[in-house]
């Protein structure tokens, strides 16, 4: 479990000031290299997706089908994480480039960007790990902390989690619709209708693109449409499983903390930083791992600085770690397998009401 030193009000203020200073230093240093980097990432996404789709046209021939599927999955992962997620956080808004503007970027995933900008950027990042406010805690179907009130359906949560992992993009997409509240009658159907329209339009487009246009294109070119369809399905599946794993490692590891809503009362900047630090967990690994997670392996830094370009997190992490150590705060980090194992343990353990 976590071992955090209790900080006085003055210490919390000083802690916040140090983290603010790091933010200012990093922002002042942004420039050409960051702009070149994000455009290169975009070039990699294009190269992966387009070459993957091209290879899939070769049909069931195993080497090309596997490689094509993998490349397409890879392209989608990078697009969703290092490119889309980070751009939509406004990390590159300082460039003033309309193509990389956080407000308008639309990503290659079922959920509309506007939904994500609300549920994720606003709700999740503001109320991180606050029970009853941050819907990302278990997404309403999983009990991960003993503080969550037990409900009978949690008994089957290993099954729900598996389904959620396989269909992760849809799980993320429907979050904004608040269907639970609609069923309970707390939100009217009229209210949810425009959102539903937006949702259907985006999901429809994604389906038509991946599961209709490209298979039909293959057919028109005299290729195997079924192989293309299967490649697209598997690529989306790979992306779902990977993003699920990364995201569940971000806030639900053994040493991640949750907070009561009362934490938010009179919360200062320093308190907010402290809550982000306690509620997030990092992954250690190679540069490739950091890249493939969209630098969400630096989840702590991402939550402290959601609008600073993610490629800066690695350098910032060294300082954050040092600051955390000085203030006696646990810096929650570990290997991906180790952290994920603790997440699975939580899912298994808290399915039962008496587990505390």
């Amino acid at each position, binding site marked *: 479990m976590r071992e955090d030193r209790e900080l006085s009000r003055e210490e919390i203020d000083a802690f916040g000031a140090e983290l603010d200073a790091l933010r200012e230093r990093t922002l002042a240093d942004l*420039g050409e290299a960051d702009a070149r980097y994000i455009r290169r990432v975009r070039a990699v996404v294009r190269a992966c997706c387009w070459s993957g789709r091209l290879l899939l046209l070769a049909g069931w021939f195993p080497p090309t089908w596997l490689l094509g599927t993998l490349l397409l999955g890879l392209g989608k992962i990078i697009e969703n994480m290092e490119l889309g997620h980070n751009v939509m956080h406004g990390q590159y808004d300082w460039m*003033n480039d*309309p193509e990389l503007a956080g407000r308008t970027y639309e990503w290659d995933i079922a959920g509309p960007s506007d939904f994500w900008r609300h549920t994720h950027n606003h709700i999740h990042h503001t109320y991180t790990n606050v029970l009853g406010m941050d819907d990302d805690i278990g997404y309403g179907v999983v009990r991960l902390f003993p503080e969550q009130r037990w409900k009978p359906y949690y008994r089957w949560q290993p099954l729900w989690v598996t389904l959620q992992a396989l269909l992760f993009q849809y799980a993320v997409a429907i979050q904004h619709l608040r269907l639970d509240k609609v069923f309970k009658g707390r939100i009217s159907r009229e209210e949810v209708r425009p959102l539903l329209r937006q949702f259907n*339009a985006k999901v429809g487009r994604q389906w038509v693109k991946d599961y209709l246009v490209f298979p039909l294109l293959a057919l028109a070119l005299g290729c195997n449409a079924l192989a293309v369809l299967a490649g697209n399905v598997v690529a989306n599946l790979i992306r779902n499983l990977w993003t699920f794993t990364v995201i569940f490692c971000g806030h639900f590891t053994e040493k991640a903390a949750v907070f009561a809503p009362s934490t938010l009362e009179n919360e200062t900047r320093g308190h907010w930083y402290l809550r982000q630090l306690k509620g997030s967990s990092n992954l250690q690994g190679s540069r490739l791992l950091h890249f493939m997670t969209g630098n969400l392996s630096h989840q702590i830094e991402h939550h402290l600085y959601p609008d600073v370009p993610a490629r800066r997190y690695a350098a910032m992490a060294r300082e954050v770690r040092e600051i955390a150590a000085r203030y006696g705060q646990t810096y929650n980090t570990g290997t991906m397998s180790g952290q994920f194992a603790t997440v699975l343990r939580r899912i298994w353990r808290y399915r039962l009401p008496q587990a505390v």
Partner: protein
Amino acid sequence: MPLIPLRLTIPLQPLLAPLRWLTAHHWLRASDVDACLRFLQPAWALTRIHARVEARRWVAEDMLAIRLRPNGNWPGAQAGQHVQLFIERDGVRLSRSYSLTAQADGCIEIAVRRQPEGRVSAWLCEHLSIGDCVELGAPYGELRWPQEGAVLLAAAGSGITPLLGLLRDALGRGFSAPVRLLHFVREQGQRAFVEELQQLQARYPNLAVEWAVTAGAAGQRLSEEQLHAWREAHVLSCGPAGFVEQLRELVDGQAASLQVESFTPPQWRAEGERRPVRLQFVRSQREAVGDNQASLLEQAEAAGLKPEHGCRQGICTQCTCQLLEGAVRDLRSGEISHEPGQSIRICVSAPLGDVRVDL
């Protein structure tokens, strides 16, 4: 060598229509399409206006004329209009407004005065080379050449540029009434387009050009005598705000018509008492307490938002957003907008009271 010559982008324009439809309906991403078009021709794009630098020449000690060939998305411009020019420095897209000094053969010419501290103009003057591509905004500007009658053009500094564009166009169309061009510059070497103007003078007897150097003890100033003989003329003036205001006072009510344009934003006068207002930024779901004096752009930035913007002086329309509720005051004109759903430029709009904007 580009795979497709730039000139060909104009006849190929209709081919892009289906792609535009697909991007407008979110089936394709415009940036992906643009990347492919750029591969074929560096200045090609789906809807954005890019232009290639065809020529550059110094027209004064501190002014560079740049000839640009825009791609097929250029809508055409009227003489006397300006364009926003975009470049990227240290990863940041910057833009400045420049006036068109000439248009011919599918090319446009702009003139850039090198500002000592200017991030954009200094770079353009020193580093922009022939063959480079830059992005342009759509042309804008309200200066129009009068139908008939004598015309007085009064320019200060780089204010010469839109007036020269108008003058060339009018003389080329056969305008025959008397035209007088007065150009005020600080130093002798800042007289711009001297050769061209002298040639025009030789060719068109109805044109008279005069320069006035304002620096030093013997420096000339704009005076009533200078303008006396041209009382009944149509007056067009362009220059810094101070110059334009002075001219407006001198000719007010006497000229046949008066059109002015100033390129430094006038000091916006505060209206009434400073008082707090509640600002709701709907899209980013933020609320802030601001005041009724500063622009919404500044106040949004102070609240931690990063609204898209360009010129910050009400020109480029990049920061345009919807006013959802409440009223705003145009900082330049004092005009009040309160229509829900109205588009406002947040860089020159200050809230009159509590407002909700789609930011």
